[in-house]
């Protein structure tokens, strides 16, 4: 997932050494993220069973702009609905019903309202899924997930070695202080 908040660029497809610190308590995971970042480590992600509030701020993530997609979808829906109703009733095949003008705007409000909501909802969910690369998969385990525990009761902090200046010894030292229930070092293709 290329995004502005990931500071160090790495060529795609390269193997990187990763460190994971698994906690059984959300506040310990939060404290760990703050301590690691204070010490100059770049925390890649924290995988959690639920949305731990404050974790995005601890990671320094910017506010999401998903609302813009909702707005765009809504405007498109309203435009399409009003435009289509006007086109069918006033342009393509004008019909006089009950003596009303071809552009009976109040009567067009309900359908336009519904289509505004419908388009906005699809735009929101579609943008969310597309931007987070969430799509139906055959693979039974997502490669980006550090172990099955993160959908149960584990809060896993992920640190990737991205440059030569990385201090693995300092990380291990910090990890001992932070008290994770499990630490794993491994490789991952990024």
């Amino acid at each position, binding site marked *: 997932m290329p*995004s502005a908040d990931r500071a160090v660029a790495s060529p795609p497809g390269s193997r990187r050494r990763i460190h994971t610190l698994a906690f*059984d308590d*959300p506040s310990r995971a939060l404290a760990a993220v703050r301590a690691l970042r204070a010490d100059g480590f770049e925390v890649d*992600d*924290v*995988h*959690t*069973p*639920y*949305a*731990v*509030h404050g*974790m*995005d701020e601890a*990671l320094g*993530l910017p506010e*999401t702009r*998903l609302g813009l997609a*909702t707005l765009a979808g809504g405007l498109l829906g309203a435009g399409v609905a009003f435009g*289509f109703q006007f086109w*069918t*009733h006033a342009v393509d*095949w004008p*019909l006089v*019903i*009950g003596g009303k003008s071809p552009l*009976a705007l109040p*009567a*067009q409000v*309900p*359908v336009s*309202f*519904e*289509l505004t*909501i*419908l388009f*906005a*909802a*699809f735009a*929101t*969910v579609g943008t*969310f*899924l597309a931007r*987070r*690369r*969430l*799509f*139906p*998969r*055959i*693979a*039974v*385990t*997502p490669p*980006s997930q550090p172990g*099955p525990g*993160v*959908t*149960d*009761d584990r809060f896993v902090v992920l640190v990737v070695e991205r440059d030569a200046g990385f201090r693995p010894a300092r990380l291990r030292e910090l990890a001992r202080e932070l008290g994770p229930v499990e630490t794993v070092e491994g490789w991952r293709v990024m």
Partner: protein
Amino acid sequence: MSAGAERVEELILGNPTFSQVTNEIASPMERRPGPAWWGAFLTAASVLTLGVVLIGYTMSTGIGVWGLNRTVGWGYDITNFVFWVGIGHAGTLISAILLLFRQRWRTSIARAAEGMTIFAVLCAAIFPLIHMGRPWLAFWVFPYPNTRGPISVNFRSPLLWDVFAISTYFTVSLLFWYVGLIPDLATMRDRSTGWRRRIYAFLALGWDGGTRTWQRYEKACVLLAGLATPLVVSVHTIVSFDFATSVIPGWHTTIFPPYFVAGAVFSGFAMVITLLLVTRKVLGLERYITASHFEKMARVLLTTGMIVGFAYATELCIALYSGNRYERFTFENRAFGPYAWAYWTMVACNVLVPQVFWWARARRSALVLFVAACLVNVGMWFERFNIIVTSLHRDYLPSSWSYYTPTLVEMGILLGSFGLFFTCFLLFVRFAPVVAFHEVKLTLAEQRETPHAVR
């Protein structure tokens, strides 16, 4: 409750660990269903089959097999439609409106209520479809390029607004429900093996629980809730327009939109209470769906019941005060005419029965809740029956006055819709987490952090 003291009520009892939450909520899906589930499922499926057969009979013979006549053109069928659309409203209220108001008590019950919404809208959609008489031509209600001109549908007709309202409501509810399910499907994926794992993995869309995903996910849910809130208000408003924009005394009423929306929430909560009382018992979820959840739902029932009661009184006053003799006759006829039995059933069930919830003991008694909620369901069905049938059966022309009695076919189709509803719900509790893992864990974490001031 003493003034000023912060009273923290436990929404999840016994402070379970996170993995206990996962295990306890997932276990009904992982063990073989017991005789209670099979008994309920076979009953529901049989009733559904009866409904399907009777719909088939109606379609092959024509809707003359119903009790409708020249004066009463809308009977059971449209009553059922409005009833089922109303049932769905509580689900969206719990999942969307209570989310926006940050009501934590929604977390344990939101999933089941949302499921209920989808199944109820499904049941509702059947009725206008079969009322067409030729449902294979139902696609005519959508504007599409055609060989009849091409002439499009009449966008100024409230019945067409219904098409858009109901289909949008169904689609957005389904979307909201599915988005809510994604993290929980991932939990199920990580717990299961074999073909079940493949299916859950396919549906979980590669969810990995990363913080970036969670951040956007929460935002998406709030945005969807913000969209669903005006949507749910619009749906029953538009359903009420079917009546309110006509010129039939008893239908042509400006009070209808708010009155219908309040009634929908009222009947929906009654159905949520009925369903969840049974679900939590059968699935052993007493730790998550607690007496305090039911207490709060009973308060909603009491409030919306009084709004509905107020609407009934307003209708009567306006009918008297307007000086319109047709309007006045319709309401006198509703209360004292041939259908007075239906009117007073409605008043008793919807206005009197919920008053029991002034007492805390009643709000916390499973038996009282169950009986009262069932009676409210009956009452709200009769509300729609009253609006539709009693307004129609006394025409402007006394020579065409008539009485409508439903046939067994119509009753069987109503029963069949309940069969569909319960069949869907029973399958849902077998294959999807009926309580949201991630939302309960969040509530649990917040509950641990909050100091328990007064207990």
